[in-house]
């Protein structure tokens, strides 16, 4: 197995031992060598002591998903040694801490096992228990640097940058790298046949997680009020927003804050705060995950019916119920689309990677204010918490944010009378006023039945008039939400349709299927309601493989409901074990379906 820039490294450690910085250092070093990388963190819902893994896929081709293969395993956790050993692909390598002997029963003939006395070396060279544990992690980076031919200068440069503020750590980290590196060079044939070599494919790119990107997007969108209740895997979104705000949101004149972050008592309160703030004209948002959406549902229906903007980030995790909080899924699609009782539906955005988390955070506020309705951004744990290599974000300073139809004091002064829910422009979107603007602008915001003039009603026709207009607004939403990404050739009669974090795996599978003489078209939906091109795309194909990460084919259901798509041609490929989607799964399932005679 000899490859260049096509290798998967997996590191098994114990959570709480500080391996994250070592793994980050490893991944960044490869990225700095110009080689595309994909990082995935598989961690337990726990603070300390349970197994955790980090997986780095080195992909010279620049693919965006994990591979279900492991070439080099670093087995640092005795607890999971047997499993880690079994996971290595035939012909692969396993590195372990040989300070303590392995169980003889655990061995494989088809892989190469490399023992490095990491603990012993670190005990000899470092003082203090904490330092010894941390440096053991850095030392395996040194071992991998030798085995995979990762540039030592790049590693050292990163160490210097990371510890610029803590100079004394630079020396110890470099020393640990050297210990591992030298040991490997002296005892093994380095580099391995599978290795890394510098190239130029990461220029103009960054490595970032989706939650950080979304938090940055909120800051750039001018969000001023953030309300939230901590929940994995969304918490780091607010952490990022707070960090950016603490630096960039200090009023130059008064030295006071131009943002207000409120840790709510629960998700019911968090969404209530968001609605109260946007009713008052602030751009406000809440990050949450599935259980939070369940709690927010009543208020989301209120937002829909009373027509208030709100931005909700649902960083989806594995359900149902508490499910697996640190595993990924796309299983909130239906509960978000129809959150709340009564005839309610919501605008959803589906970012496929951190770059889209940044851009869609901004469009979510524009859409919410334009449409006067809650907009939900459906990210997931894979996008939100994993490091993705994406093009560096751009920000168009000339683009004016869309604040929607808000009447100012002068508008109201010139008006005879203001009515809140009148469809003046024929697009289903009424005009709104903000409290504190003008006495003529007052209206009573309510979730109870109301007329187009804003007053309470129990009259059938008046009630229906308003809910019918909301349907017209829904069609306006359809015309302005982000369009699906489509790759189309008239020679293909079958296609893949995917959403969100499945995009990377699907695109890679298209390449692989093409090599196997199976050409497929592709559509990645970006928003709900689905824009017209989605309906058209489905109609143009005989078979559409709908790839999504949930058990119940939620996206397929939504396509049937919203696009009136023919169920017979929508074939589900479902991946829902909690791990991020990989291209191998898609290829295998497509071929399996085609062999059943569904080939187009």
């Amino acid at each position, binding site marked *: 197995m000899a490859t260049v820039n096509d290798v998967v490294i997996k590191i098994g450690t114990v959570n709480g031992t500080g391996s994250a910085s070592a793994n980050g250092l490893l991944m960044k070093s490869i990225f700095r060598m110009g080689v595309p990388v994909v990082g995935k963190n598989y961690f337990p819902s726990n603070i300390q002591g349970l197994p955790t893994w980090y997986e780095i896929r080195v992909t010279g081709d620049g693919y965006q998903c994990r591979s279900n293969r492991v070439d080099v395993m670093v087995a640092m956790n005795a607890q999971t040694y047997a499993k880690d050993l079994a996971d290595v692909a035939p012909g692969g390598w396993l590195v372990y801490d040989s300070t303590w002997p392995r169980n003889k029963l655990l061995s494989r003939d088809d892989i190469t096992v490399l023992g490095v006395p990491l603990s012993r070396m670190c005990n000899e060279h470092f003082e203090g228990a904490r330092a010894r544990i941390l440096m053991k992690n850095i030392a395996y980076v040194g071992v991998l640097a030798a085995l995979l031919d990762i540039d030592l200068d790049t590693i050292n440069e990163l160490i210097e940058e990371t510890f610029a503020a803590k100079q004394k750590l630079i020396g110890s980290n470099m020393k640990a790298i050297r210990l591992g590196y030298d040991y490997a060079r002296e005892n093994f044939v380095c580099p391995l046949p599978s290795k890394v070599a510098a190239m130029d494919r990461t220029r103009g790119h960054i490595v970032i997680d989706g939650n950080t990107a979304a938090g940055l997007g909120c800051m750039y969108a001018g969000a001023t009020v953030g309300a939230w209740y901590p929940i994995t895997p969304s918490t780091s979104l607010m952490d990022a927003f707070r960090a950016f705000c603490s630096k960039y949101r200090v009023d130059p004149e008064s030295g006071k804050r131009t943002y207000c972050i409120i840790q709510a008592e629960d998700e019911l309160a968090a969404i209530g705060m968001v609605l109260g703030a946007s009713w008052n004209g602030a751009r406000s948002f809440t990050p949450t995950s599935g259980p939070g959406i369940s709690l927010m549902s009543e208020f989301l229906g209120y937002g829909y019916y009373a027509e208030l903007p709100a931005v909700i980030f649902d960083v989806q995790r594995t359900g149902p119920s508490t499910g697996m909080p640190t595993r990924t899924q796309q299983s909130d699609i239906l509960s978000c689309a129809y959150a709340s009782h009564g005839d309610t539906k919501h605008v959803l955005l589906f970012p496929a990677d951190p770059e889209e988390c940044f851009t869609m955070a901004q469009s979510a506020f524009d859409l919410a204010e334009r449409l006067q309705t809650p907009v939900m951004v459906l990210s997931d744990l894979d996008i939100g918490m994993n490091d993705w290599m994406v093009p*560096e974000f751009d920000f168009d300073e000339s683009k004016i944010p869309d604040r929607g139809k808000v009447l100012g004091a002068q508008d109201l002064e010139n008006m005879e009378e203001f009515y809140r829910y009148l469809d003046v422009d024929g697009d289903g979107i009424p005009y709104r006023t903000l409290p504190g603007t003008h006495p003529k602008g007052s209206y009573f*915001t309510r979730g109870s039945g109301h007329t187009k003039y804003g*007053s309470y009603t129990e009259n059938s026709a008046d009630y229906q008039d308003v809910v019918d207009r909301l349907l017209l607004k829904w069609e306006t939403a359809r015309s302005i939400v982000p369009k699906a990404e489509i790759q189309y050739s008239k020679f293909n009669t079958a296609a893949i349709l995917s959403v969100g974090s499945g995009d990377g795996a699907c695109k890679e599978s298209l390449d692989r299927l093409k090599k196997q003489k199976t050409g497929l078209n592709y559509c990645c939906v970006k928003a709900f309601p689905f824009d017209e091109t989605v309906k058209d795309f489905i109609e143009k194909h005989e078979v559409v493989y709908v790839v999504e990460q949930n058990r119940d084919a939620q996206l397929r259901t939504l396509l049937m409901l919203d696009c009136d798509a023919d169920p017979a041609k929508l074939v589900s490929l479902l991946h829902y074990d909690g791990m991020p989607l990989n291209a191998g799964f898609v290829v295998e399932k497509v071929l399996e379906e085609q062999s059943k005679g569904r080939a187009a």
Partner: protein
Amino acid sequence: MSYISKPKVSHPNLPRNTLGLTVRDYEGAVSTLCAGCGHDSVTAAIVQAVFELNIEPHMLAKMSGIGCSSKTPAYFVNQSHGFNAVHGRMASVTTGASAANRTLTYIGVSGDGDSLSIGAGQFVHAIRRNLNMCYIIENNGVYGLTKGQFSASADIGSMPKKGLPNQQEPIDPVSTALSLGATYIARSFSGDKEQLVPLIQGALLHDGFSLVDVISPCVTFNDHEGSTKSYAHTREFFHHVVNADYVAPAEEIKAAYAEGSAMPIELHDGSRIILRKVDSEYEPTSRASAFKYLRKRFNAGEIITGLLYFNDARKEMHDLMGNIDTPLSEYPLDKLHPGKKELKKILSRYR
């Protein structure tokens, strides 16, 4: 909503406040509550309080949840924005609204079901944050719209219209607020407008969370013999312990107060609240002694009213956070981000 609308013509010689508005300008739609409902008296007290404070109608925001009490913001100050939220969630909406615009005056009207059962969580957390609002509980011990079930404020032994007496401990909003550190706590009776109006005025002007718990009898479901929230029972057992007089900015204190009984409190706009102690034993600035006194008198079956606790030393929500004084909602969007060049700098960390 009533089908009868109020006449738009009013008496030409009605007194006007400093904004040139009459009390009619602070009215709302015709109430649809039962004739004799205590809540309508509270509405009238709010109208008078706001009129006398010269609050510009559009600078007032009326917040509520669900229930009979929560309907009432439609019945006062038509020219203010109102937010009739979902059940028990008025506090969170007001928190967000205040976060966006701290310059409005927030008046919330809730009930004992809305605040002490379904909304208990939000009620206590609004207090904890010292949210700057006037929070009125129209407390009648029952659920009216669903026809007379006991609420969490029903006293032990209180009789329903039909069925067995309540056996569960009541939640008393005043002692709850006291234990949570609310900074302005008052109780009154809907039938005592003279006491109620200045208590609401003080609550509206206080910088921080103000609770006004108003015993407001439900004439339809809880006004019979054996009820501890009836007009008759409240009239018999309520006692003023500390009253409050509102004195507008620059106005002279005209009333004569007995030595040692009056305690003037300066409010942020230059006006004053004069506390009048009816019982000289009472210490309205000490949580511990207020709590002890209230429990003792509660155990004796008395309903103690007045401005029961006051603390102007604690900062309200925005000042605790260090937020700007102007509304966040009015801060220009293009000044809320550092621009394209800085984005490049930020992202260099992710290279």
